[in-house]
């Protein structure tokens, strides 16, 4: 065989996607970019209306067809079956093998693709791992063909592990980054404080947060190394400050431990075939991540308030 002959044959290697997938994917993508996702929120309303009329022309067509109930019903059914925003809702409780399952998976991948915040991505990973666990319960209960069931179970198990390990990595990265940042910002504050340099105090890193808060109006350090605040400087903020310092000190180690422990528990339950239990555990960790966000926001607010108070 010559190179020329081989090149001629290479032309036969061209492949095309499955037309059914291509159509389905097109509808899902259009609904993704037109529906209530993060990308489309940025699109101006005017343009959205314009595009709806361009892509989903049926609006004015609908008026013409209004007198033909059968056709209108058919159109609605087609839109429900064929995709779009409705199908994504309908796809929510699907399992592998269901016709709309692909919509669910593409939607998950799309959500990951358009999420840039690592914390949000970790939450999504936990949510999707939970989805796989729930699907596993349904596949085991409902699938009758053993070979199909085994194949689906194997795929779901691999996907579950993939999502879970991704979420674990992200959580660990976020926590190590946060602890690095808190150390850096703390030491930066101490370095930038000339008054403190003058006093010659060299405070440990875990007490720097308290040092930043515990300054009086002249910027003089008023907290002692044990973290307690000198009463005469600002007595009313002492208890709050102590609490905040404690939360900050607990942060890196306990956060990682608690979150990773629950994820490991979920993994263990999954491996022991308690898929429902694993799904519940994942729901728990998702809530913890969300709570953590809220508590961080709260503590940030209270810190601001305290700084404001102390400068009055």
């Amino acid at each position, binding site marked *: *065989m*010559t*190179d020329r002959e*081989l*090149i001629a*044959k*290479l*032309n*036969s*290697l*061209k*492949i*095309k*996607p*499955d037309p059914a*997938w*291509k159509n389905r*994917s*097109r509808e*899902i*993508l*259009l609904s*993704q*970019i*037109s529906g209530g996702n993060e*990308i489309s929120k*940025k*699109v101006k309303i005017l*343009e959205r209306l314009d*595009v709806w009329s*361009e*892509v989903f022309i049926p609006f004015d067509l609908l008026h013409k067809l209004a007198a033909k109930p059968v056709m209108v019903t058919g159109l609605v059914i087609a839109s429900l079956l064929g995709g779009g925003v409705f199908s994504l809702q309908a796809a929510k409780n699907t399992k592998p093998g269901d016709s709309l399952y692909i919509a669910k*998976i*593409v939607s998950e*991948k*799309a959500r990951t*693709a*358009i999420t840039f915040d690592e914390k949000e991505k970790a939450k999504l990973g936990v949510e999707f791992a939970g989805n796989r666990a729930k699907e596993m319960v349904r596949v085991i209960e409902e699938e009758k063909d053993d070979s199909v069931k085994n*194949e689906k179970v*194997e*795929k779901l198990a*691999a996907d579950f*592990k*993939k999502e879970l*390990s*991704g979420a674990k*990595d992200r959580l660990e990265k976020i926590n190590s980054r946060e602890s690095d940042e808190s150390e850096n910002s703390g030491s930066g504050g101490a370095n930038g404080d000339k008054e403190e340099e003058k006093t010659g105090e060299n405070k440990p890193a875990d007490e720097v947060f308290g040092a930043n808060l515990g300054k009086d109006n002249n910027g003089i350090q008023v907290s002692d190394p044990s973290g307690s605040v000198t009463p005469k400087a600002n007595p009313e903020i002492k208890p709050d400050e102590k609490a905040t310092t404690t939360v900050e000190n607990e942060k890196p180690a306990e956060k990682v431990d608690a979150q990773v422990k629950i994820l490991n528990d979920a993994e263990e339950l999954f491996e022991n075939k308690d898929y429902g239990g694993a799904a519940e555990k994942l729901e728990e960790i998702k809530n913890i991540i969300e709570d953590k966000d809220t508590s961080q926001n709260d503590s940030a607010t209270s810190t601001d308030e305290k700084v404001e108070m102390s400068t009055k």
Partner: protein
Amino acid sequence: MLEKLKEKLLFSRLARKNKAAFDEFYCLYADRMYQYIYYKVNSKEDAEDLTSVFFLKIWGLAQEGKIDEAKTIKPFLYTVARNIVIDHYRKLSQQKTISLDLQAGREMDAEAATAKDFLADEKIDLPAGADKLFEIERIREKLFELKDEYREVIVLKYLDELEPKEIAAILGKSKGNVNVLAHRAVKALRELVEKENRIL
């Protein structure tokens, strides 16, 4: 020439976040990008998922105003697809457990689907087309045995039919290097196929 102008106009509308243009863009590029991604990942399911991710990524870039209309279209698109595949492999490498059986099953599915498509496209009956089909499948199999660099240049040049300067932009090489690489890739593939023929 007219086709290129039309593509340029379409790309320009897409860059301005026109959703109708996105629809046209999908219809125009879905087959091409699917094929490119398939030959990178060797899995029908992954190729389908990653092709969808590719189109969403392009839309996301349009939303962020990161599509430069002055850029040459194809190299830009293929580079985005290439990076998506790289990310995919990065994630896979983090995944500790991969079911080999499942992977083999996927490959068999893809081959069976391709064979079916081929028969449908060529409209040949099995006895007459079987030899040809067998040979094509053998070439495809050997294509996946080539090193990534060779396989990619073959796909870009002979399957996607890109021009050498476009391939050069995608691979970050000079036009001359691309021609040399393509020549070596075809030679390597021919040798693999011939070796297999001798064994059989």
